[in-house]
């Protein structure tokens, strides 16, 4: 366990359950939020090392949440990976322009997705010990 904390912001309970299990299996602490408003509150309270953000959220678009995160001094430095069912054309650029470090379309390739998480957390990939992906 490396104890890094990841916040998943997504309104799909089943996705939360599946992804949480995978991340936990890789040694991460996982917290979650299911709507745009509570997302910021949870982020401020939990101070995660990384945020995985969906774009279609109840009570506000994910891009707004991303804007808020980047606008808050306490959170601005936290890397955000967007994981959305939306089409990458256009959305990917919008997300990156708003400060996300990567865009993945659902369902993502597990290997690439976890690779991006590790990179964002500054972990040395070769040395990390993780389960099969």
């Amino acid at each position, binding site marked *: 366990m490396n104890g890094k904390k990841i916040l998943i912001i997504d309104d799909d309970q089943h996705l939360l*359950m599946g992804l949480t*299990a995978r991340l936990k*299996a890789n040694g991460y602490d996982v917290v979650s939020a299911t709507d745009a408003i509570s997302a910021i509150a949870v982020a401020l309270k939990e101070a995660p090392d990384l945020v995985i953000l969906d774009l279609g959220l109840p009570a506000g678009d994910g891009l707004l949440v991303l804007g808020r995160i980047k606008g808050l001094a306490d959170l601005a430095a936290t890397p955000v990976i967007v994981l959305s069912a939306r089409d990458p054309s256009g959305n990917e650029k919008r997300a990156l322009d708003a400060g996300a470090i990567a865009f993945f379309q659902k369902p993502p390739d597990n290997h690439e997705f976890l690779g991006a998480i590790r990179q964002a957390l500054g972990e040395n990939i070769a040395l990390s010990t993780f389960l099969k992906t």
Partner: protein
Amino acid sequence: MNSDVPGRIGASEYLPPAIQSATFVTSQGDESSSIELSPSLRADLLDLGAWAEILTTYGRTMRVAVALTDPQGRLVGECHNPQPVWKLVNDAAPVGGEGCPFCITTHVPCTAVVAALQGGEVVVVRDQAGLTHVAVPLLLGKQRLGAIIAGQVFDRYPEPLSIRRVAKESGVSAQQLWEVARRQVPISRTILLASGDLLCVLGQAYLQQRYGAIIEAELGRTNRRYRLLVDGVRDYALFTMDLEGRVSSWNGGAERMFGYVAAGIMGQNFSCIFTPEDIASHVPEKQLHQASEAGRTEDEGWRVGRNRQQFWANVNITALFDDGGPDRGFAVIMQDITERRRVALAMEETRQERARLQETFLSHVSHELRTPLTAIHFFLTNVLDGITGDLPPQQHEHLSLALDNVKQLKDMVRDLLDITRVETLKLTVEPQQASAAKLVAEVLSTCRTNAALKNINLRSEIAPDLPLVWADPARVRQIIINLIDNGIKFSPERGTLTVGIRRLAEDVRFLCLWVSDAGCGISPENREIIFDRLAQIRSSVEASRSGLGLGLFISRELVSRHGGRIWVESKMGHGSTFYFTLPVFSLAKMCAPVLTPQNLDGGSVTLITVDVAAIEGSDQANILPKIRKVLGGCIHSGQDVLLPAMSDVEPVRSFFIVACTGLSGFNAIAKRIGLGLQNFDSASTLKPVICSTTLVVGAGGSREEKIIEVTARIEQLIEVHLLNEERPK
């Protein structure tokens, strides 16, 4: 008419020029005559009423009988000025239809006529009674129209014996016949022949005059018919203009379409039917110029009627040459297609709107499908990866198959959206410099699992030293995966699937990628339609287990958006090979905006290199596009060119700009780049180094040669630069 016309008539001398182009010459004749006259024209040329005057005048003057015959020597019409002896005998025993009209008691057609037509000359013949006549041929070119015969006179004093015999045969009184014959003054054969020559000249002259008159009347009728036709056309405006564009004729359709009557617009310049904007930008003049250069020009656009109302017209302008004659100018055919255009536009709009709705809908469906798919994906992979505990082998196998199906569903969702994008023209490719070999290697590694399930041997045949391509890597991967998935689907167990790349022999500007299977092959009639969207949907029943079968359709669209083409070669029972081409990256094409003739001649083409401190790891993907954006903002877009990454060796440190600039210009650009990067990189970790090399081009040679020289130089400079950079320091 030639003054030395002899008794013989050279047939061709009498060929009137107009006959060569006469419209009613019905066909090319046999070898004896090159021109065939229609029966009606023949009849018209030998019109009895028209000939009567010349024949009677001649007969009275020369004191001979005269008549027309057909080419066989049979009388046509009446005998003018008949002579007493012949009249007496003929009244008692009329010459039958077949007999010579001018010989008494002869029951064969006139032999003189046949001989005269055959030889083209005047022929004399004398009958049993001693009556003589000449036959004069009537020829038009080589056409034998008939003959004029003249005579019924004695060429010496009559012989009583012959007269008595003739009288007996024809049943008239010998005494009476002799009295008449004795009083008829003989005309010598010489004079008869000379008068025959005169008749020949007269006949031919009249024949030609008559021919000319007939042609003229016919042309007049034709012109009138055309005018009626042109005026009668109501749905098209038809008009002619002189070389300057002044209207010279204006039909009823034009009157109706534009509201100008012919009298009102004749002589005016046709620019009056253009919109003010078109007139201001010299469209009328340009169209005339184009029509006279190319012979014709076509256009669609707004035209203006007299009441200022505009309509959308389809316009055809044809140059009229008239062999340099006075009617040179232009003919214009115009159709009002405002309504047709409106309907077409409305239909297109409806189609677009439908496609947009479809895209919105499918985009929504795709989003909604992806959400549960993602949950399934995570649960399956979690279980498969043992996150939820150990898994017995059989369950592992079943879950793997379930995961395969998830992957298929995912591809289908992507294809559905791509298909709609083809229609809304939103299926885009973002080409960059890419290594096709590297892309194929990546794809092969991801496809191995799938191939292994069917024990298919996946191999590659990649030619060495391939140039880079100008293509969208993600899209090229999509195309190759499509083709490989197809190949796997149709390959037998333990088959071999080969993916290859080679240069395209026919066109060095392309690379050819291919995927070859040993499957059942594709029948010739299906080789075209497999790329077709509908055909695929129909045949998708059999392929329903592997997606929507839209892969080839989408692949074709993607390949064509790269500027390449896709095709299949196949042998039934032996397998198929799918080929597609991708354009080779070309520095010359990329640098085209800079390599203008002026820049090449002015020696102002400069290669600017910007080196930054190495960017490692994850930041690379993040920062590179931003640096490129900064650099892009420091040059004249559309004039200078920021080259794509020239090497796929990471980390990327060097950027290249081909610009049109001198030394002072370079200093300005370098300053802008320095400031731009400084703003972006506040921590000053990039430490940019900016250099320039001015490229001098040899004065001689064509533009193409200069471009080849410059691009070769740029490539060389970049290569050297990259080698120096990559060398460990």
